[in-house]
């Protein structure tokens, strides 16, 4: 355990957290505006990755980054217009169910169009290398931009840790998105209309604003954000049909932990979960080590050994849900939530 390890884990955690936030922000936006929990949000994330893969194979990654979110956003808006709006009058449960059905269909269609194996979707050539390298030379930290310097090769007691450029790029995109979303919602006319349509739909309607169309735009925008996260996430990780399921439940946990409908809460919760996950994955300690420090004798025969011997890295996958349960017990409205319910 050294400083460079903590530093790089922190950075990795931040990048995972920001990626989660890109997803969670769209979901929160849709939820707080329309009261609809979009179960298929992660499906749009996956769709974004696959559409970007197809575009990038033809005209390059940068066009894919630019074009995939609007394409998927348009699909999302069409879904809102022709399916979701119809069931709005039946209440929230059918709304949730119809997005649940959509997640089945998207999964099948993706398997149909792009196959059931993972596809080779990678970051562009210019972003494949490391952005910088942290050089740990027996406690003294060094730092080098770009490719790892010569001293990393061959010198025995030097630990070099690289940070990939594309991770940094993804973080940059997420921050950019966060700022522009905030500016859009608070500083522009359309943002004001959206906020008015949220709190006073009848009033906004009688002032001449087309509230259903605003909601359609919000849904389309939210799914476009998911697709943008998909372009980054797909290139950073693996683009495969199970990617939606892998991330979907975590995003829901993020939203509940942060507080339903709170963008700030979603931000804090995603970064928290990202960092927590990144540190947990790299740690091979278990409760046994704690017992050893406390001088308690625990042997394979003692009660609950299977539980005590589970390593932290093994529970990394369920940490979001454990946190979810803890939050619900001790602070049911979430970190930044304003209301219970």
């Amino acid at each position, binding site marked *: 355990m050294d400083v460079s390890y903590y530093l790089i884990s922190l950075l990795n955690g931040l990048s995972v957290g920001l990626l989660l936030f890109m997803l969670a922000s769209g979901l929160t936006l849709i939820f707080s505006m329309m009261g609809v929990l979009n179960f298929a949000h992660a499906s749009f994330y996956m769709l974004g990755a696959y559409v970007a893969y197809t575009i990038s194979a033809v005209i390059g990654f940068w066009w894919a980054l630019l074009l995939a979110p609007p394409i998927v956003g348009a699909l999302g808006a069409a879904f809102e217009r022709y*399916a979701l709006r119809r*069931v709005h009058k039946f209440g*929230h449960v059918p709304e949730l169910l119809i997005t*649940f*059905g959509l997640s089945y269909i998207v999964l099948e269609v993706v398997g149909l169009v792009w196959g059931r194996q993972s596809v080779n979707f990678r970051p562009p050539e210019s972003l494949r290398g490391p952005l910088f390298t942290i050089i740990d030379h027996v406690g003294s930290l060094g730092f080098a931009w770009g490719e790892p310097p010569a001293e990393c090769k061959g010198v025995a007691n030097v630990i070099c840790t690289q940070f990939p450029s594309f991770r940094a790029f993804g973080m940059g995109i997420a921050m950019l998105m966060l700022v522009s979303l905030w500016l859009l919602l608070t500083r522009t006319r359309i943002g004001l209309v959206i906020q008015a349509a949220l709190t006073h739909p009848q009033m906004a309607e009688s002032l001449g604003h087309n509230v259903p169309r605003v909601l359609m735009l919000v849904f389309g925008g939210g799914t476009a954000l998911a697709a943008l996260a998909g372009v980054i996430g797909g290139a950073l990780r693996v683009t495969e049909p199970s990617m939606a399921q892998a991330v979907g*439940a975590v995003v829901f946990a993020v939203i509940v932990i942060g507080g339903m409908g709170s963008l700030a809460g979603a931000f804090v919760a995603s970064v928290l979960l990202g960092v927590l996950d990144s540190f947990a994955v790299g740690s091979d300690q278990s409760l046994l080590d704690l017992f050893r420090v406390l001088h308690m004798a625990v042997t394979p025969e003692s009660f609950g050994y299977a539980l005590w011997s589970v390593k932290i890295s093994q529970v990394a996958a369920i940490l979001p*849900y454990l946190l*979810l349960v803890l939050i619900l*017990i001790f602070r049911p409205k979430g970190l930044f939530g304003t209301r219970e*319910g």
Partner: protein
Amino acid sequence: MTRKLIQRPSRWLVWGGYALLLLVAPLLFRSSLSLTMLSQMGVAIIACLAFNMLLGQGGMLSFGHAVYSGLGGFFAIHALNMVSDGSLPLPVSLIPLVGGLFGLLSAALLGYVTTKKAGTPFAMITLGIGELVAAMALMFPGFFGGEGGISGDRTAGHAVLGITFGPQIQLYYLIAVYCFFCTALMFAFTRTPLGRMLNAVRDNPERVEFIGYSTQHVRFLAFMASGLFMGIAGGLGALNFEIVTSEVVGAARSGAYLLFTFLGGAMFFFGPIIGAVLMVLALVLLSELTRAWLLYLGLIFLFMVMYAPGGIASLIMMNLRVAAHRKLRRLGGPYLALAAASCVMLAGAGAMIEMVYHLQLNQAVGPNMKYLGVPLNATGIASWSGAALVLALGLALFEFTRRRFARCWNTIQDEIETESKQGAAP
């Protein structure tokens, strides 16, 4: 003079018919495949009805309800293994109750957290808890058996009256008995004050709070009752398959419960029974018939939510209402036309979907395939344009007949309205 328009069939008749159906079903469908399917249906009926205690009667949408049937199943199979090695003196026929007990306990433990919320947050939390348990199932191979699962032997223990549960038919009747009594108990639950309060919590939670009830408490109690029956279903499932793998607690299973309970009809007590039968048919037969079954299922579900949110049960009840007014005969012609048009439309759409699937999955065997007995070439222009033509024709016919049907249907509904108003007036 008031006339009772809808003659309610007597309660004894309905329950007697249900028991009779459970009794004679294996005599009507005699093959071993249908016997296995009937057993699975019995288990699925309990599970879907238990799921509907939350969805239909409490308005609680659970995305992780397989957890309770699954945990019940795991505890049941461990109990069965303890019976096998003689450390637990319990007849095998009571093993499902062990599953029910642990389903109840796990629902009490996890439900305490879940039912703190209602509505959409409730749904999200159940999803999270479902993922939590599914991940833990792979984390503790000692209890959950890892990838291979835990297997048992249901013929263990002493045979009571010569019943060893070795032959499938004996197990079917065990399942049928459980199925009947669980259905009766769950129906009775809807008539208890708690069952009524649950409906009130679904419809108007604020008012319930004002009267002085805790909605959270009512939800929690209902959740535990549901967990009990889910656990019994899990225990029966464990006896049926003699193996429990970690996928019984997985998200796919939870999704199937939700999907088919809704398809059957969550707003009526008997809806989930239809859903459960459909579930087994779809999972066993449809998945054999076509590779695209998940896509079809998703599409059917989507259209059902959009156009018939009450599920199949509500469609049946609407038609029964028409029949009670002796007007069903007038709908016969439009129904036939509608069915014919949708057959044409579905044949065209199905041909195109099957060709796409064939191209994606069976490329190795060449582009030629058979669809409904018709040889098709999945890369040929003739097959594609033919399918598109059939689809377009079907769409046009469907729209035409649908309009006629809707007109006829609306007239009949109006007539029924006026008739019942006249009937109500002295």
